[in-house]
């Protein structure tokens, strides 16, 4: 399986993602943001970081970069596109995913492990994961998911909520909401479920000695599902 990780100026989780993808069997290639085309891929990843210094709005400049047109074409033809953290912000700015990630409610940069509840397994990203709750890492200043009431209704009607912030038992209530995100949303799909954007970093949870292994479950499932 071939994957491509796009590098923007200011990306800083691109190499972690490269390590994670290769560890679980992907033949990964790194693609520069100023390239016109993406080499043949089964999966495209927009990594975390601070693309273009988060100027204007997080992800807004990357959302108009040269490579993005081919990412959009790939996504619209049904290809799998995964955006983590800044990658999620870029996906909302391109319009591939609805809503926007606003500044955290309490104005603090949050860097910690959190639990997320898998809300929908009818897709390639979570299909064979047996657990209902994953422990992953978040590190962001703008992770406060927001959209209009109409969009929220459409997201819920189409089962587009992928993961929500919760406690270790899976209670996804306001008490377990780290950043003020609407409905505790930590990640969403597009309608067809081939595009996933989420704030938590599975690539940081692939080693039992360094962190945890719930990210491994994510990548193991991904390579099996493809």
């Amino acid at each position, binding site marked *: 399986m071939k994957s491509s990780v796009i590098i923007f100026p200011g990306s800083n989780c691109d190499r972690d993602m490269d390590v994670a993808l290769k560890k679980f069997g992907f033949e990964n290639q790194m693609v520069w943001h100023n390239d016109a085309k993406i080499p043949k891929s089964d999966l495209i990843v927009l990594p975390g970081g601070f693309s273009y210094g988060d100027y204007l709005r997080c992800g807004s400049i990357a959302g108009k970069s040269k490579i993005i047109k081919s990412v959009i074409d790939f996504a619209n033809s049904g290809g799998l596109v995964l955006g983590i953290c800044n990658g999620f912000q870029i996906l909302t700015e391109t319009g591939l995913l609805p*809503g926007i990630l606003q500044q955290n409610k309490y104005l603090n940069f949050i860097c910690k492990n959190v639990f997320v509840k898998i809300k929908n397994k009818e897709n390639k990203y979570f299909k064979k994961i047996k657990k209902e709750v994953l422990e992953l890492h978040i590190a962001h200043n703008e992770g406060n998911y927001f959209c209009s009431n109409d969009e929220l209704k459409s997201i819920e009607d189409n089962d587009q909520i992928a993961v929500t912030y919760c406690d270790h038992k899976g209670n996804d209530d306001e008490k377990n909401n780290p950043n003020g995100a609407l409905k505790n949303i930590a990640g969403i799909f597009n309608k067809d479920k081939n595009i996933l954007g989420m704030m938590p970093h599975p690539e940081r949870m692939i080693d039992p000695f360094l962190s945890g292994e719930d990210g491994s479950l994510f990548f193991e499932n991904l390579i099996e599902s493809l």
Partner: protein
Amino acid sequence: MKVKVIVTLKNGVLDPQGKAIQQTLNGMTFDNVSEVRQGKYFDIEVNESDESKAKSQVEEMCKKLLANLVIEDYEIL
């Protein structure tokens, strides 16, 4: 010609920075400040002498890049 644009958060959208500024002002004895909303201001130099053409181009820029219409409104001055 120069076109000026102000981008602000829509009414009802949470503005934690504005809130923090308001609370700081209150703490500085500006007790009568009841709300602050923070926005962005752009000075755009367009190589176009026709004012209406320049402004309609800037409007496109606002819709496509300068503002995110999910949470922001724009005003061309």
